[in-house]
């Protein structure tokens, strides 16, 4: 029997080892931002606009300032003297526009929940006590809430200086779209709605800013995904050099894209620390989280598909409209999701004709921005919904129509209709694996026999492509100071321990674990000999952080390269000490060994002892370099695309409209799998977030722009009892853009789950001639589709 890579000593790539940082979290001994207390720390609470759109005529803060424990009450006008506003646009999204946004509204509030005044007090409770004492005179303005109405030419502009409410618009036409539709045997169309929902990270947004006026040093403890990006944002708008701002990110209680944006109240907290010359903490409470954490999606997509009678997809055409609130979020902008929808529609398929329009419009609701799987669940629901509709009309099995149209596994590299290049995908292998895993034929037979008993079950399939390992084409080219590269510094400590510090960050997905696994493998030490440091701009190499499924692919590769360089340097020192050619030596189990025989020559700690404490015993010209840094940026493609496929099996109660999820399967190809357990759990967690969007989650607004369910009792999230077990399998197609070969996996679950659930519901409703296309698919929506309410 031949040995696999996994049989080598210290080979952790591909191994399910527990995360080194899990133990402390399981004992409640993590350190989240709200767990940190500093001397003289004050707390801020914000008065938030009760109106979706209103002018601040007058603010009188005198009474609030006298409230017990209050240090200071600060209005937007006062804060504007120390903090400049920002505009969330990117140069490569042509024509994009937005208005300057202040940390605290200066003369006008543009959504319900926008901060209009800050109270800093000894305790949070005292700060909140003073809020109702702020005397504010409002002049209510007409609220523009409906995105379609806001987009109509000539409708009143929320920011009159911009001329209209269009933040960004993109149009794309490829091939002979009109001819394809004209010549098609089957054309079907539908309007798909992905509701406005939000992240509901269990740890609310949290920040603690401390300013030392003597050296003008701002230290920010922040629950964030991107410490270096935030360092730049805080520095730029507070007029400090980047290097005077240190962002420290300890444990983060979930993020999912929520904590990768600039929030007005968080910048305001930093400004208050500067103004008051003391530490100021802000932790969003759950109620304000619902109206200030970025909202996500809110897309209405009209789509149609042209298909031949053999089931060959000839063309897609879509028109996407999305409402993003009153400001494009800084610095990633709120136009990226619509751009992604255009890029991803029809992504798995071979068609050559495609027309798309996407419009991104301002409205008086909370801001909308990128959340886990940006654009993917929308594009997937539209694409896969249309493919299923076409199959229905043709009387073709949903698996069969996909098999006929998915890009062949040997067709790569492949340039899609959108112009995007796919390095290597595995749609057909994934489809085969999925159908085998779920026993598709048996499931169809079960479905048919149960249907005779009045039990209505549905099977839904969804294939998708996924953006991972982004290059600088994502943000950097647009002028945003968001790093596409990441660096890893790795060193041998005298005790023989390997310490890595890295720019990618940990929010629970296991970043630190996979960095440790790659480092241990690359250097040749047991996992328990590796320490990983993340989340501190003062300590780690400059990097982008963790978003867009880049942690493993970018951070992992930087670690692999750094580890290999350190290993080579260690072997040079070992060669001198042992009077041996370094090429004949190896590092295994933290020992220098003879490469051929594996016999031990010297433990790493002995090499460390001599190199650090007795360098006098080494030759004069030998300079041990036992700390190295390597950087990695992916330059081969705009994104390294991955693919996957999911299936949902569920039962619809046609009397109550309730959906019972029975099973869910996911096949994911994320290239090299570093830790199978962590990848599987990323997929499962992502699937459930996607199911949340499909069945439960929605930020419900009324026509006046008031969010009506901004609390956890009324905003429904998936809880344990409703969720199914989720079966995960892999196809492994490593990327050749890196030595490690890893692609991202964190967003795949969320990308495909809503479409799979939607198609399964519609499959169950097929005998009734009913279908749903507007998420969330609540019992009411299903009963409406059945014309029962």
């Amino acid at each position, binding site marked *: 029997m031949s040995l696999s890579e996994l049989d080598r000593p210290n080979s952790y790539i591909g191994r399910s080892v*527990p*995360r080194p940082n*899990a*133990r*402390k*979290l*399981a*004992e*409640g*001994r*993590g*350190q*989240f931002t*709200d*767990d940190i*207390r500093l001397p003289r720390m004050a707390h801020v609470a914000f008065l938030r606009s009760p109106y979706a759109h209103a002018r601040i005529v007058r603010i009188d803060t005198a009474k609030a300032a006298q409230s017990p424990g209050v240090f200071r009450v600060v209005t937007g006008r006062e804060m504007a003297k120390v903090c400049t506003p920002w505009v969330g646009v990117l140069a490569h999204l042509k024509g994009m526009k937005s208005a300057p946004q202040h940390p605290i509204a200066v003369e006008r509030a543009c959504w319900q929940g926008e901060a209009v005044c800050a109270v800093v007090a000894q305790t949070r*409770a005292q700060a909140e006590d003073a809020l109702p004492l702020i005397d504010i005179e409002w002049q209510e303005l007409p609220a523009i809430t409906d995105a379609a109405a806001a987009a109509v030419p000539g409708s009143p502009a929320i920011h009159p200086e911009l001329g209209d409410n269009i933040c960004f618009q993109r149009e794309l036409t490829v091939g002979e779209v009109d001819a394809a539709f004209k010549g098609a045997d089957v054309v079907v169309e539908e309007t798909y709605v992905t509701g406005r929902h939000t*992240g*509901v*990270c*269990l*740890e*609310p947004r949290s920040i603690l800013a401390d300013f030392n006026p003597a050296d003008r040093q701002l230290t920010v403890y922040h629950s964030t995904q991107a410490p270096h990006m935030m360092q730049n944002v805080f520095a730029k708008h507070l007029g400090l050099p980047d290097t005077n701002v240190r962002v420290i990110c300890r*444990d*983060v*209680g*979930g*993020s*999912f894209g929520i904590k990768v944006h600039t929030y007005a109240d968080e910048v305001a907290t930093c400004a208050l620390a500067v103004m008051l010359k003391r530490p100021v903490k802000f932790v969003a*409470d*759950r109620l304000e989280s619902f109206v200030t954490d970025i909202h996500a999606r809110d897309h209405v997509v009209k789509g149609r598909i042209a298909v031949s009678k053999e089931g060959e997809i000839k063309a897609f055409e879509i028109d996407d409209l999305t409402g993003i609130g009153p400001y494009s979020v800084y610095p990633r902008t709120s136009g990226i999701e619509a751009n992604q929808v255009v890029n991803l529609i029809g992504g798995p398929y071979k068609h050559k004709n495609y027309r798309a329009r996407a419009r991104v419009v301002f409205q008086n609701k909370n801001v909308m921005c990128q959340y886990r799987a940006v654009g993917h669940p929308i594009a997937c629901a539209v694409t896969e919904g249309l493919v299923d509709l076409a199959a229905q009309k043709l009387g073709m099995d949903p698996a069969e129509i996909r098999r006929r149209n998915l890009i062949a596994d040997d067709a790569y590299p492949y340039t899609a209709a959108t112009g995007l290049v796919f390095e290597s995908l595995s749609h057909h292998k994934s489809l085969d694996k999925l159908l085998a895993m779920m026993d598709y034929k048996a499931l169809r037979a079960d479905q048919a026999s149960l249907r005779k008993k009045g039990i209505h079950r549905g099977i839904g399939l969804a294939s998708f492509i996924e953006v991972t390992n982004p290059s600088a084409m994502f943000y950097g080219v647009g002028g945003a100071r968001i790093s596409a590269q990441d660096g890893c510094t790795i060193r041998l400590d005298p005790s023989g321990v390997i310490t890595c510090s890295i720019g990618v960050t940990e*929010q*629970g*997905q*296991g970043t630190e674990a996979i960095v440790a696994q790659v480092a241990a493998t690359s250097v040749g030490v047991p996992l328990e000999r590796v320490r990983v440091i993340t989340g501190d701009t003062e300590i780690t190499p400059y990097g982008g952080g963790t978003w867009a499924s880049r942690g493993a692919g970018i951070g992992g590769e930087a670690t692999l390269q750094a580890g290999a360089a350190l290993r080579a340097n260690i072997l040079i020192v070992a060669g001198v000490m042992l009077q041996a050619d370094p090429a004949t030596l190896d590092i295994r189990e933290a020992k220098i060994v003879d490469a051929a025989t594996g016999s031990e020559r010297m433990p790493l700690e002995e090499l460390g002892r001599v190199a650090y404490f007795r360098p006098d015993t080494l030759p004069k010209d030998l300079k041990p370099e036992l700390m190295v840094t390597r950087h990695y940026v992916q330059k081969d493609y705009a994104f390294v695309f991955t693919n996957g496929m999911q299936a949902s099996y569920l039962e619809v109660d046609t009397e109550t409209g309730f959906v019972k999820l029975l099973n869910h399967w996911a096949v994911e190809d994320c290239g090299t799998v570093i830790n199978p*357990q*962590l990848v599987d*759990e990323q997929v*499962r*967690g*992502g*699937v*459930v*977030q996607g199911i949340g969007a499909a069945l439960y989650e929605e930020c419900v607004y009324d026509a006046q722009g008031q969010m009506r369910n901004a*609390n*956890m*009792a009324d905003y429904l*999230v*998936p*809880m*344990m*009892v*409703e*969720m199914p*077990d*989720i079966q995960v399998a892999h196809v492994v197609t490593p990327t050749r853009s890196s030595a490690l070969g890893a692609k991202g996996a964190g967003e795949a*679950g969320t990308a495909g789950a809503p479409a799979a659930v939607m198609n399964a519901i519609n499959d169950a409703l097929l005998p009734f001639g009913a279908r749903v296309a507007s998420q969330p698919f609540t019992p009411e929506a299903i009963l409406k589709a059945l014309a029962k309410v």
Partner: protein
Amino acid sequence: MDTSLEITLTVNGERVTRRVAARQHLVDFLREELELTGSHAGCEHGVCGACTLRVDGQIVRGCLMLAVQADGARVDTIEGLSDSGAIAELQKAFVERNALQCGFCTPGMLVAAADLVERNPMASRAQIREHLSGNFCRCTGYHAIVDAVESACRAVAGRKP
């Protein structure tokens, strides 16, 4: 008007006496006064379960109970339950199964799960899901938590005569 009251309670086996504001919630008291930050405030209106604690052996939501209501009570937090080894098996199962990601829900989830492991070690997967349906986890999708609780349950059941 002074609305503070003096309370004496036993927290993780230690007797503590403090003067607290009548309006202070138990979870805020533990976090802010005793600096036991393992109990987390996730929603502060009794829905998410992140602040789940043991008071006199019963699981309660630390955000729905005032500190003054705990006067004379025995309170056990994740820190105390970790140190005593009372939930060690469950914690080990969570770590091995990666039944936690960000770890913010985990202390409350463990306290709630321990209650089931002790009372009904033969609980089915459906019963585990039912018992923990008041604890929100945004990261895991729950499958791994069910696996971990199931394995801890069976380990306990296997030891019972």
